[in-house]
């Protein structure tokens, strides 16, 4: 075990991109594999933060990635969010009608969308689309030696490929969550109007009346962490991809699985923390 961890932490500074030739003497399994992944990911995150503040800043590539990631997921998130708002309202309505509390519907839906469902569902969709995309892209660049070519042409691949993509996901996911919330609100408004009539203005007023800063701020902060996790895990899995095309597929797949799991863990921590902060602030 010690040998594996030493290998993870003592890899030389410039050898992170040295293809599939890491010096592990036996195939690790189970707990060892988990610790290896954790150690590798921590080290990779450390490399990200080290390169983040180093010159040159790849602003053009960052903007290109942000545009690509944001634009490519807009339709998918839009459709999902609309259905999410619609279904959530249709499912919740009968219960509220039984209690004669139908007028609470916009407020209840807005709280559940803004606090939980919007950020988590959007992050999960992005984990499926963006994280796997990054994993597959960097993985294929690794196996076709494009990352090595970048390195030998005097470009730091961590800086050019990883920092730009992780920053792009970190800043784009919160924007996509806002967009998703807005579309889900509209879906909810449509659902409410299927059984009666409420003006859009009244719907929005009722929805926002129920929302407090303690609903919006923690939910927004956690989306930055979701974005960071999606980017860094996709990059990590792709960057260390090996074993040819099979390895690329595996990288994309594990990027989705791990980032989805991490999203739930971050969500759990965020909920607990915001509860604690809320209690102390009262």
């Amino acid at each position, binding site marked *: 075990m010690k040998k594996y961890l030493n290998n993870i932490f003592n890899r*030389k*500074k*410039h*050898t992170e*991109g*040295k*293809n599939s*030739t890491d*010096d*592990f*003497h036996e195939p690790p399994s189970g707990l060892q594999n988990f610790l290896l992944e954790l150690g590798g990911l921590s080290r990779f995150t450390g490399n990200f933060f080290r390169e983040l503040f180093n010159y040159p800043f790849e602003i053009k590539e960052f903007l290109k990635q942000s545009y690509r990631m944001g634009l490519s997921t807009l339709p998918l998130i839009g459709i999902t969010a609309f259905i999410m708002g619609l279904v959530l309202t249709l499912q919740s309505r009968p219960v509220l009608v039984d209690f004669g509390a139908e007028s609470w519907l916009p407020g209840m839906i807005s709280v559940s969308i803004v606090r939980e469902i919007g950020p988590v569902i959007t992050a999960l969709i992005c984990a499926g689309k963006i994280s796997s995309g990054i994993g597959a*892209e960097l993985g294929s*660049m690794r196996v*076709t*030696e*494009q990352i*090595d*070519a*970048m*390195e*030998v*042409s*005097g*470009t*730091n691949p961590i800086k050019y490929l990883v920092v730009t993509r992780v920053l792009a996901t970190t800043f784009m996911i919160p924007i996509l969550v806002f967009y998703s919330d807005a579309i889900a609100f509209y879906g909810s408004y449509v659902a409410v109007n299927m059984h009666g009539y409420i003006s859009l203005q009244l719907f929005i007023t009722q929805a926002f009346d129920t929302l407090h800063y303690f609903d919006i701020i923690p939910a927004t902060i956690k989306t930055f962490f979701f974005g960071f996790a999606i980017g860094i895990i996709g990059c990590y899995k792709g960057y260390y991809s090996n074993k040819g095309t099979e390895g690329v597929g595996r990288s994309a797949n594990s990027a989705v699985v791990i980032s989805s799991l991490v999203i739930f863990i971050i969500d759990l921590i965020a909920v607990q923390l915001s509860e604690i902060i809320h209690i102390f602030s009262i």
Partner: protein
Amino acid sequence: MEKNKHILNNTNNDYVVEIEHLQKSFEGRMILKDINLKVKRSENVVILGKSGIGKSVLIKCIVGLIYPDKGSVKVFGKEVTPMNHKELDEMRTRVGFIFQSNALYDSMTVRENLEFPLRRNKTITNKKEINNMVYEALKNVGLSDTIDKMPAELSGGMRKRIGLARTLILKPEIILYDEPTTGLDPLTSREISKLINTIQNKYNASSIIITHDLECAKRTSNRILILQDGIFYAEGNFDDLKKNKDPFVKSFFVTV
């Protein structure tokens, strides 16, 4: 013999690459046991050997993509292992690497592929100057008309040439070729071999060429080294090695 003339006459007999007692192992298996190699300025050295014997590992050690377990690798008289990022980048601008898979960036056009190393290393901002350099590099490999194509639209031979052009654009003093003719038809292989010689003559560049292609070795080499069991088993020019009586060396030249 004519091919070696300018190297023999080279008064500045300094070595651009010096490797001493290099060792490298992977997963407990020693790939390179004791490698010693010195390459002179404007010399073409060909390394022959069976697949998986460590030829690519050796040239990756030269550019710092892989670090040796033991031994010394010097490029332009400077040790590679202790180099920091900046020193490595400086060294790499003087060393070109042609990858076996060509390693063209497939999300970029041919023009962007060629501009990439230029913009990052030469700090040239003048668009006209960059354009001229890109056109010149493409002209050198005879592919000026592919400038706005994507790598996926090119044939294997064309991609190999674009890879060469991308490397040549920085006018490197050492070029490392990782199986430059693998997967190409005999005619294209011959053209690539000619191109390697043209580059040597035009840019006075030193080359280390890893190949299985004996015709390429014959056409391009000033010196051939045969790698076997982690050491250089035999060394000499093509004709000498061809006449060698050793059964293993002979087995390499049996088809020519």
